[in-house]
């Protein structure tokens, strides 16, 4: 109870400010101010998340207002708030120009109102999904993510956008339904064990009794959850919605999708995996869940890598790279063990920082070139050095080069692989090489070379990108003790064993 009174306000502020933002922004339609209000809500949420981090470090786990903050989600919550804020900053000016060019007059204003309020809805549902203590609410929140993003993706009302949104909605709707079935099965396995079935969906309660659950039901449940939420993680072969949604939706939305939504979905899978591992412990198939994750991860890595070579659209390109990266992370969690788990957690954070930065830069690049087709984007460094170099450096970071953070996690991940399952390196190595080649063969042509006719510099606000890249650089050089502490605890929770 003491913890409650301590952590109550920061949690509530962090999570529910965006909820407030939804309605406020739905009411005010006036363009400029709306943009600032959007930024303001995200800012308040971010500030509150900092406060929350402080509260967490002081008091440890926080349970308040049906929300639960522990080692596993604290860093993700702060990350969400931060990326949300920077994306809001980016989209304030960007969306104004885009909507004024893409949509005509009244629809433009309407579209802006819709965009802003849905943006907040998106943030809110993600934060809710991360913080809630209840698997049912988790599911509802993820569903809410889907609904809000479907509308965001279809914002431009072009035939492609509608098609993308339709496919996105269908695939993820089905996925979500399967995930719910999995959740039902978890409850089914739990109800007779728990003292009070009314709490049958409270994660921490389930976690305490996880050992007594019926293993068969749990593994079936896990399959449903994996396929269901996995659809949103973008695991192959349920990934097909991802490139479409990324390429047709507004760029800030792509940034949030790649940067945050995939993480959130994976987080949901992870929560359930903890229960399943507990139930399966001792049975002959103790690591079954992990093996499923490894399989999905490797397949996603390879397929994502190969698709990089096919894509002709810059945003599709980076969405495929997201598939590959999520594959790596999934692989890391599947591998298990402290080292791999730590690497995967770090990977989640750094990847979302980098990828959202990349997408913001890509937004400017497409704005410069007036198209998303890779073949028509050339010589960015000559046209607008700021954008060109930023894109190049960000992609370098994305490709896992030091001194950027992704390198550290890939280093640890490969090390762990050689330790636990050396043979898998045979798959990992070509996967990484193909990914790398696929990224650079396109990016290099876009940033280097002479300027094609008709490319002119644009007004670009890259500060969010600089901040995020600076963070990525920082994480690559050294990991602040606080974050290391959190990740260490989270590792102990997920892997069941502390770090060396």
């Amino acid at each position: 109870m003491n913890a409650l009174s301590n952590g109550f306000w920061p949690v509530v502020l962090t999570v529910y400010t965006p909820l407030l933002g939804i309605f406020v922004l739905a009411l005010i339609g006036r363009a400029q101010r709306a943009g600032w209000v959007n930024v303001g809500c995200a800012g308040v949420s971010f500030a509150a998340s900092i406060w929350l981090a402080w509260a967490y470090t002081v008091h440890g786990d926080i349970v308040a207002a049906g929300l639960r903050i522990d080692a596993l989600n604290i860093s993700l919550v702060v990350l969400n708030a931060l990326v949300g804020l920077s994306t809001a900053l980016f989209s304030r000016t960007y969306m104004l120009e885009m909507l004024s060019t893409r949509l005509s007059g009244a629809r433009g204003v309407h579209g802006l109102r819709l965009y802003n309020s849905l943006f907040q809805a998106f943030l809110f549902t993600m934060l809710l999904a991360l913080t809630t203590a209840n698997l049912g609410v988790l599911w509802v929140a993820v569903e809410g993510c889907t609904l809000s993003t479907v509308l965001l993706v279809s914002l431009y009302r072009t035939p492609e956008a509608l098609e993308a949104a339709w496919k996105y909605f269908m695939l993820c709707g089905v996925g979500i339904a399967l995930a719910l079935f999995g959740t039902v099965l978890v409850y089914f396995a739990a109800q007779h064990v728990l003292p009070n079935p009314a709490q049958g969906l409270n994660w921490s309660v389930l976690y305490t009794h996880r050992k007594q659950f019926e293993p068969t039901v749990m593994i079936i449940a896990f399959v449903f959850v994996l396929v269901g939420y996995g659809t949103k993680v973008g695991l192959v072969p349920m990934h097909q919605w991802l490139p479409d949604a990324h390429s047709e939706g507004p760029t800030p939305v792509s940034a949030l999708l790649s940067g945050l939504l995939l993480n959130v979905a994976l987080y949901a899978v992870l929560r359930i995996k903890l229960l399943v591992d507990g139930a399966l412990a001792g049975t002959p198939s103790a690591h079954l869940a992990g093996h499923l994750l490894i399989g999905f991860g490797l397949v996603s890595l390879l397929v994502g890598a190969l698709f990089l070579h096919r894509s002709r659209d810059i945003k599709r390109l980076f969405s495929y790279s997201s598939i590959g990266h999520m594959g790596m992370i999934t692989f890391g969690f599947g591998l298990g063990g402290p080292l791999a788990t730590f690497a995967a957690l770090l990977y989640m954070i750094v990847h979302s920082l980098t990828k959202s930065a990349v997408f913001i830069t890509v937004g400017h690049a497409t704005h410069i070139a007036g198209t998303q087709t890779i073949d028509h984007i050339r010589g960015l460094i000559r046209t607008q050095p700021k954008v060109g170099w930023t894109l190049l450096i960000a992609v370098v970071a994305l490709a896992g080069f030091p001194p950027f953070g992704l390198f550290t996690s890939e280093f640890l991940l490969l090390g762990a692989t050689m330790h636990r399952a050396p043979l898998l390196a045979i798959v990992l190595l070509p996967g990484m090489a193909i990914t790398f080649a696929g990224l650079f063969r396109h990016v290099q042509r876009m940033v280097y070379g002479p300027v094609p006719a008709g490319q002119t510099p644009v007004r670009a606000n890259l500060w969010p990108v600089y901040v995020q890249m600076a963070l990525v650089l920082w994480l690559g050089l050294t990991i602040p003790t606080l974050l290391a502490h959190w990740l260490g605890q989270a590792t102990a929770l997920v892997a069941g064993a502390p770090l060396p």
Partner: protein
Amino acid sequence: MSGEVIQSLILILAALVLFASFVQISRERLLPAIHAFAWQGALVAVVTGLIAATGHVPGLYFSAALTFLLKALLIPWLLHRLVRHLKLARHREPLGHPILTVVLAVALVIFSYWLVLPIVAHSLSSTRNILAISLAVVLLGLLMMVVRSQAVAQVLGFMSMENGLFLAAVSATQGMPLVVELGVAFDVMVAAVLFGVFFLELGEGGELHNVDRLNRLDETRDGDL
């Protein structure tokens, strides 16, 4: 009434739910499929009510009513209007491989029974069977979305998946915490509205008759490799 009677009654109703899914898959025209869907919703609602009666779970009465309103009345009515509005009522869509489809459907049903067989612990067999049925309904809904190329038919498939979920949620587990029902309800409602929006948007092109025409976004065209 005594427990066994009610149990068997529930089982019969569940079987009817499954039958409704088969009907939806095999109908060539839309309106009969929508009617079958409405019936399915009604059956699920009745099952919920029965379980509420036997298990003395007052919360379930509420969700039973909710289900009946939504699944049996509101959404079928919406879809009905939509179909008329878009003049799809007369449109026939014969299945590509009817035999194969039915075989697949039956296989899925058997599969879901095989799946729940190992679940032996702590639950009377009827629960297990209902679980199997609801699983089968979910899978059949998914199958329907795969085999039917009409947009509305796919929506029906989606909705009947929800029916299966709901059936599992209420019957197999004697009612889950209320949030889930609320969630499902909310979800279904928004979904229906969304579908409406999409249909109105997509209505112009012939995509509604055949979703396969929605294939502008693909990677199979040759890039520069």
